[in-house]
């Protein structure tokens, strides 16, 4: 939707912020270093302001996640230019919240299996389970297609199941095997 007057533009932006600020903040704090999250969020909001006319109605949040993904990635690239390799790898890891409010300590096997997957597989599983996006929404945020995302999600779940089985061969392996058709919701 193209916004005509400045007042209308401000109103629409404020309404957009009311809708996406909290989930965007969560998305960024899951993926960016704690001391960077505020800057990243500001950058994302500025991009939303500048591209307000491009925000697709009905898919605002997945689209905004796409902007956030790109911005987090750019911040990482900028940071990596100044860091040694070991430090760079450290920045790629998901942030660890001090008091660990997550269940990572309760389900270390799954946390380890997830951490051992390629970054792209981890990300698609996070978008699915943490952001609670469906394949078509993940596709929008990644700039891909729903079919491709369904395939990738299915493969990522299979890899996660295999990793869990490798950790404990007595556990049932197929914790998430499913056809791409079932994913396409």
């Amino acid at each position, binding site marked *: 939707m193209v916004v005509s007057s400045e007042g209308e533009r401000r109103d629409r932006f404020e309404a957009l*912020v009311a809708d996406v*600020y909290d989930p965007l903040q*969560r998305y960024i*704090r*899951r993926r960016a270093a704690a001391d960077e999250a505020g*800057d990243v969020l*500001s*950058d994302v*909001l*500025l*991009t939303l*302001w*500048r*591209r*307000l006319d*491009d*925000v697709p109605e009905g898919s605002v949040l997945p*689209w*905004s*996640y*796409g902007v956030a*993904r*790109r*911005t987090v990635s*750019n*911040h990482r*690239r*900028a940071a990596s230019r100044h860091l040694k390799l070991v430090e*760079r*790898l450290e*920045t790629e890891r*998901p*942030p*660890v*919240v001090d008091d*660990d*409010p*997550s*269940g990572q300590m309760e*389900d270390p096997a799954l*946390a380890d299996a*997830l951490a051992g997957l*390629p*970054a*792209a597989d981890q*990300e698609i599983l996070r978008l*699915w*389970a*943490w952001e*609670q996006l469906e394949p078509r929404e993940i596709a929008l*945020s*990644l*700039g*891909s297609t729903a079919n*491709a995302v369904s*395939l*990738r999600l299915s*493969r990522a779940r299979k890899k996660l199941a295999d990793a869990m089985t490798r950790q404990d061969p007595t556990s049932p392996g197929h*914790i*998430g095997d499913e056809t791409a058709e079932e994913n396409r919701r």
Partner: protein
Amino acid sequence: MTDQLRKRLARLDPMHPGVDTEPPSRELLEGIMSTPVVEQPETGPEQKSNRWLVGIAAAAALVLAVGGVIALTGGGTDPVASGPPLELTAAGGDPMAMCIVFSVEELAKAPIAFEGTATAMEGDTVTLDVDHWFKGGDASQVILNAPQGMEALIASIPFEVGGQYLITAYDGNVNYCGFSGESTPELRSAYEQAFGA
């Protein structure tokens, strides 16, 4: 079973709904809304780190460092699209050709390096969705053209739809001899050492 996995993964979320978030400050929003909206020219990857200074109407000036904004202002509704797909030639490795011995140092010399998932194999082309650019581009898709046919190509790299691959290229040509292949932990580790994560 899938729902169970989703719930188990959700319990790993460090920012689950029980964790508090901060509301946006009025100063921040006013600062952003005072930024002029102007079309920006298309820029290359190196310009992504440009910073925009954002003045605010409040007494204190707020400076926002904006990485990547320029690359996102090119119009369209795709938040991550960054230009047309990159096309590379993937002739397949010549079994008689001399290969340079694989090393991270040699790998690091490649001007193009990315990780991608094969989403289509039609005729003599393989389409990859880029999952991660290590070096040399920011297109969201790469198309590999196989002038010697798909058979020759998959003899070198066993592409299949849904598979994930690490690819390097010189002069528009996919590099073989172990420098490109299916994404394995070992090859990915070499890419991360060569190009940084």
